[in-house]
């Protein structure tokens, strides 16, 4: 190999690129979340029914459902500022999704949204979150396979928010914020999927 080629390789090897700050922040958070989930899993499961928590949970769920309903009525063109509770940015996909994948996604988002909104402070969140994360990953693989890279990216972007939900030391406020954000992201996706499904019906 010539000296020039060696020099070229050396220059290329030494060239480094910094990730955007929010990306590096996401990596730090991913480790914090993974550590929090691990701690939570090591802890023995709590048993018993707590009437106070149950009724607080019902109230929080009702308030969230009302808020999300208002969000729906207000329209889907923009994202209200108060929703931006974390640094994770979930992109809205513009691509069309194959019908079979769209049905799977709708089922996943509907079920997950209902389960997430039903969580309260006393719930054992980590098992539920892991089940949702596993489904999320299966659908992400399917989206990648079906040439729907934007959908795959949305599913990947949702994962860190889901993992944060499993953290042990969440305050009631943090839990409610994460529930709201996840429900919002899932609503955006469900609205997009429903619109696509309606367009498909009209064109056939």
């Amino acid at each position, binding site marked *: 190999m010539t000296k*020039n*080629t060696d020099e070229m390789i050396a220059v290329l*090897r030494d060239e*480094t*690129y910094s990730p955007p700050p929010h*990306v*590096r922040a996401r990596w730090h958070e*991913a480790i914090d979340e993974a550590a929090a989930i691990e701690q939570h899993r090591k802890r023995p499961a709590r048993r018993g029914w707590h009437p106070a928590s149950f009724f607080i949970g019902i109230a929080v769920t009702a308030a969230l459902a009302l808020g999300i309903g208002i969000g729906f009525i207000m329209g889907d063109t923009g994202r209200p500022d108060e929703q931006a509770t974390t640094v994770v940015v979930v992109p809205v996909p513009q691509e069309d999704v194959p019908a079979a994948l769209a049905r799977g996604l709708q089922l996943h988002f509907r079920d997950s949204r209902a389960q997430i909104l039903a969580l309260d402070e006393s719930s054992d969140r980590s098992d539920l979150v892991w089940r949702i994360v596993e489904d999320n990953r299966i659908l992400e693989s399917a989206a990648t*396979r079906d040439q729907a890279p934007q959908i795959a990216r949305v599913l990947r972007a949702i994962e860190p928010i889901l993992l944060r939900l499993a953290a042990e030391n969440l305050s009631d406020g943090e839990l409610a914020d994460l529930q709201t954000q996840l429900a919002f992201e899932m609503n955006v996706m469900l609205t997009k999927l429903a619109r696509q499904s309606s367009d498909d019906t009209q064109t056939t």
Partner: protein
Amino acid sequence: MTEAMKAGVPPSKADFHRVIEARSDRWYSACLKITRDPDLAADAVQDALLSAWNKRDQFRHTARLDTWIHRIAVNAALNLLRKARPGTFEALETDVESGESGPEQRLRDHELQSELAANLGRLSDIERICFVLKHLEQWRAREIAEEFGTNEGRVKQAVFRAVRKLQAGMRDLQRAQV
């Protein structure tokens, strides 16, 4: 390396945060040179970090944590690229000179700022990946061949073509500067 790591204790959360601050530019750069896609590169590093965290009990203390994560990140980048662009690695089996990257890829190349790095855009995916793995990541041809399920001869051919194209790119660059 912290005292705990020297003593054979798995790396801690603080160790991970420390190496992210110190070395994540390197991981991201390696993944970006492989994928030429900032989103895939960022996802590859995240996948690698979570994978390393989950397997940290297997971490050998004769190695460095950052180089261990680096290797996992490169593998994660290859896996994501394999999923995102199916058929990329099949080009090795045809063993013929492939064309340059498409317009979409060239658009992404603005992320790689130097002219020399931009020259990587003259290469096909498989030529670029074989070149990056062989010369920048120091993989052996045998390891690359195993990764892609092919033989060493085809990998060496792809690397040879990559070097030839890069040299031609450098000559063009030098002529333009005169």
